[in-house]
């Protein structure tokens, strides 16, 4: 029973933490939704541990908790890849803006000299 309690508390902490970040406007909704979903799934299995056992046996996984770890691992990898994608896009955009700023500054300097 302690196991479920720890899992439930952890899920609730993540829930509250993410909601607080969202409330303060630090985290955008599209990322918050993802973490809330993950915390929600965690909380669900913490409250109904029998469900995980049932699912584990149905899928033929020896220790049902391994199923949880596996799914969690896959989800975290997918999240990381998505973040790398966003980061790459932002890098490209920032670089592009730097180029535009450089060109604008040169035009401004020329304008200042001519006037």
């Amino acid at each position, binding site marked *: 029973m302690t196991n479920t309690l720890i899992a439930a508390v952890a899920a609730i902490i993540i829930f509250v933490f993410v909601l607080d970040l969202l409330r303060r406007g630090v985290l955008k909704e599209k990322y918050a939704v993802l973490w809330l979903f993950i915390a929600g799934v965690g909380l669900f299995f913490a409250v109904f541990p029998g469900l995980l056992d049932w699912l584990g046996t149905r899928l033929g996984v020896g220790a049902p908790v391994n199923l949880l770890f596996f799914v969690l691992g896959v989800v975290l990898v997918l999240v990381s890849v998505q973040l790398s994608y966003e980061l790459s*896009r932002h890098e*490209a*955009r920032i*670089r*592009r803006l*730097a*180029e535009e*700023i*450089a*060109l604008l*500054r*040169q035009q401004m300097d020329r304008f200042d000299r001519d006037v």
Partner: protein
Amino acid sequence: MVGARELVAIPAWNEAGIIAQVVKKVREHRPGASVLVVDDGSTDGTAVAAESAGATVVSLPFNVGVGGAMRTAFLYGQRGGFTAVVQVDADGQHDPAELNRLIDGLAEADVVVGTRFHPESMYFVGGPRKWAMVLLSKALTRMNKSPISDPTSGFRAAGPRAIELFSTQYPAEYLGDTVGSLSIAIRNGLVIRETPVTMYYRAHGRPSKNALWSALYLGRATLALIATVLKKPNSSRSDEA
């Protein structure tokens, strides 16, 4: 070319010691051309030195790499209505006396690459760096159906069609700028030719080569090539370039 407007673009990062000399040499050998120094976030007064030598200077707010600097130059060239953009390194490795040969080549091609590999060349490389260059050269030559023996050469000229293309699509990643831009050009149906050039060992500044660098070179070069070959041609995502 009648009504030709030429832009000699020099991407420079902390080359204050030599940039003025390079700019003066370019102006001497190609008096009709505009000289643009793209100051890639230098902290050593490169911009001031280039400006006093008579170049137009565009200063990037931070270092974006040669690829980003060159895309800035192509944007400048495209918006300014230039019909030729020639890239020359800021460190004095390229001889501005050979500008004429590169620009003349544009009569029959969209991109002219100055190759450092030819019978009279004093330029030699070895080890993983050489394997990478051979691999890249073979792959690009096959795509181009005409030899590209030195795909990483930074001494090259671009005509109107290439300027239009490169102003929106120019890879900014390391090595992507030289190799990737050629692959993008080929895939968009541009004609690429090469002409022999002389390579001078870095007149100033420290060479960007060491043991680790050349070891990483092979892998990164291969990755750069794979990335550009896999990229969809005519991609509308210009911000991803």
